[in-house]
């Protein structure tokens, strides 16, 4: 048991260090600049992870991009410039919010379109039923009149 414990302790020393999302040594001294860095990181995808932002990811690539963003912020680049730079380097894939362009047109208008079509369908179904239930054909009117006459002779 003693040896097992020793072995485990040794192994934990050998195991890869636990990398993490934003690490203490990355954080910028100026809270306003750091806040901008965090905001930007939350919009960018960690390219080697599944659906994680670089802000949340513990991958080395995410770490590198986080550091890169902070370097650029300190240099005085604005958010758009940094984002454009990263897109030119990695493509639209890095943006968690896809840009609005012909290829993504359906993606962006799809949901509002579905809402509009649904509303239209409901309105049409209503009006059709309204017509169907409200107005009777002349023939039906005559039938009702005949029935009424039978039941309640005038």
């Amino acid at each position, binding site marked *: 048991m003693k040896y*097992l*414990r020793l072995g*485990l*302790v040794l*192994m*934990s020393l*050998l*195991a*890869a*260090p*636990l990398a*993490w*999302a*934003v*690490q*203490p*040594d990355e*954080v910028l001294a100026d809270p306003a600049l750091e806040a901008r860095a965090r905001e930007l990181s939350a*919009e960018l*995808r960690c390219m080697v992870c*599944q*659906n*994680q*932002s670089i802000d*949340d990811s513990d991958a080395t690539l995410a770490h590198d991009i986080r550091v890169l963003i902070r370097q650029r912020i300190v240099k005085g680049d604005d958010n758009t410039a940094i984002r454009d730079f990263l897109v030119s380097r990695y*493509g*639209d*894939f*890095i*943006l*968690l*919010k*896809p840009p609005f362009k012909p*290829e*993504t047109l*359906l*993606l962006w208008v*799809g*949901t*509002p379109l*579905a*809402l509009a079509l*649904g*509303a239209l369908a*409901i309105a049409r179904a*209503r009006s059709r*039923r309204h017509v169907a*239930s409200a107005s009777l054909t002349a023939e039906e009117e005559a039938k009702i009149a005949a029935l009424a006459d039978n039941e309640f002779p005038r």
Partner: protein
Amino acid sequence: MIVEIGHYALTLALALALIQAIVPLWGASTRDASLSGVAAPAALGQFAMVALSFGALVYAHLASDFSVVNVAENSHSAMPTIYKISGVWGNHEGSMLLWVLILAAFGALVALFGRGLPPTLRANVLAVQGLISIAFLLFILATSNPFERLDPAPFEGRDLNPVLQDFGLAIHPPMLYMGYVGFSIVFSFAAAALIEGRIDAAWARFVRPFALVAWCFLTLGIAMGSYWAYYTLGWGGFWFWDPVENASLMPWLAGTAFVHSVAVMEKRDALKVWTIFLAILAFSFSLLGTFLVRSGVLTSVHAFASDPRRGIFILAILALFIGGSFALFSLRAPMLRQGGIFAPISREGALVLNNLFLTTTCAGVFLGTLYPLALEEITGEKITVGAPFFNLTCGALLLILCFVIPIGQSLAWKRGDLLGVAQRLTLAGAIGLASAVALAALENGGPVLAPIGAGLALYVIIGSLSEIAARLWRPGTSPGAMLSRARGLPLSAWGSALAHIGVGVTLLGLAATGFGSEVIASTRIGEPRHVGPYDVTIDSVQPRVGPNYLDLVAHATIRSGDTIVATIEPAKRTFASRSTTTSQAGIATLWFGQIYAAIGDQSANGAIAVRLYWKPLVTLIWLGACLMAFGGALSLADRRLRFGVPVRGRARAPAGAATAG
């Protein structure tokens, strides 16, 4: 030997499923009662066989029988017993077997408690359920056999993926599957109604308990999964709009819409065709979810198996059932007669609006989840659709829906009075608005959505409460009369009010995330860190040996001023067999908020990297979901008394009727 019995039982289950599917369909169409009567015993037999097979796999895992591939690859003899059991479904083959087990269990429920159903309906429902079983049993036997042997057997197993060695795995997948697969019964009912070409309010009464059971479990399952992610991922995220999460959200949205529209159908005999459509849709999304997760088409953290053969097989199942049911729908739906008429401003009208928003949200999730796949397939271009997109589209739709909730609840059936509703909701609206403004002023320049969400949440909660209050209290009512009225209110009224309060509570928890704070810092032992209203101090850092892992534990104390309010032990866990490290967050629940701590590496000078979060009201996110599920269960209890139609209710003692859920 036991393993072979399990495999054989699974094959027998397939044979019984074939009988369960073919014979009753024939019997129902030729009006042959003895043939349709085969359905129930076949369904029970099939369940028994699948249960036997599942039991054999559990046995193999418990006994650490490493001559079985499935056990060797996903288990380890040193694992705690609970993980040995949950490891059964912590892998592709086992989780598919669990899927089929629950499918068969729901079929058995109909066979046992469906004696009040019209015989042809019951035969058809069980037959369709049998068809689904055939497809998935074939899938398991042909592509994902959990009983495959290994020769020579390894001396030790490869251990379960460390991320999955958690209590969450013991309950999250079974609950989620109860929800997913529960909608299969709703689907089978819809298909049976279409086969018969007949549907009425009684159909809605039969199907509603099953839909509610499935919905409650799905709600709990999703909430459980979200909390699991929250405490394991080390930074307190709880929802990522990950494709796999979306896969469970889509059936939930469609199922929620169904639970609402089936209420309209039951009470007012309206929205029949639409309800059938939703029933098919909800299960189609369950199948789609199974496909997305199981085929490995989305390479995500959840895809612990990927094999293109499996993908194509499930895709075929998907095409067969979704295509088949929608073809049947388009053939038969025009034959279904439309029922009750209602004004646009009415409870029914509000529920139609609810359905519009829920299904549109569902469409949005669907689009966002599959668009990148489709685009890459067609143009080769890779894009990412992440949280910001979903928050903008689906989040906005759900917020608008929240605004409508109390209004819809307060409207009367058939024809509602909007002015009266506005009067009744004045208090709720005023409190909501006032708190939103107050919070925005207090916060002064934080996220805009947080105060709006909080205000909206309060409006939903108070609005739902005032709906109940209005039914109990009128000027001059004595407390005694109120109590007797409260007792007289149907349980389903309490249930729906509670579920809607749950929505508000969850929303409040979500909004409160905007008011949290975080500290990321390298911290020395004994150095206090201020986060939110508390101070956190790390007192010591020590190793601790677990059964199959080693923890590096930080003992930390949380103080409010000078008083100690809680102690936490965030840890870094290293697993021996796979030499991987996971983070065990230290969480202290203080009222409804939580202090959340995770530790990283220790530097040479003894300082340790620490992430500390103050998350006010965060537990409300999951408590709200529990309230929703509890509300659903209450409605279920109410229905149960009336399930099984009057004849049976009278023939049997109340105790007998109460089991007919």
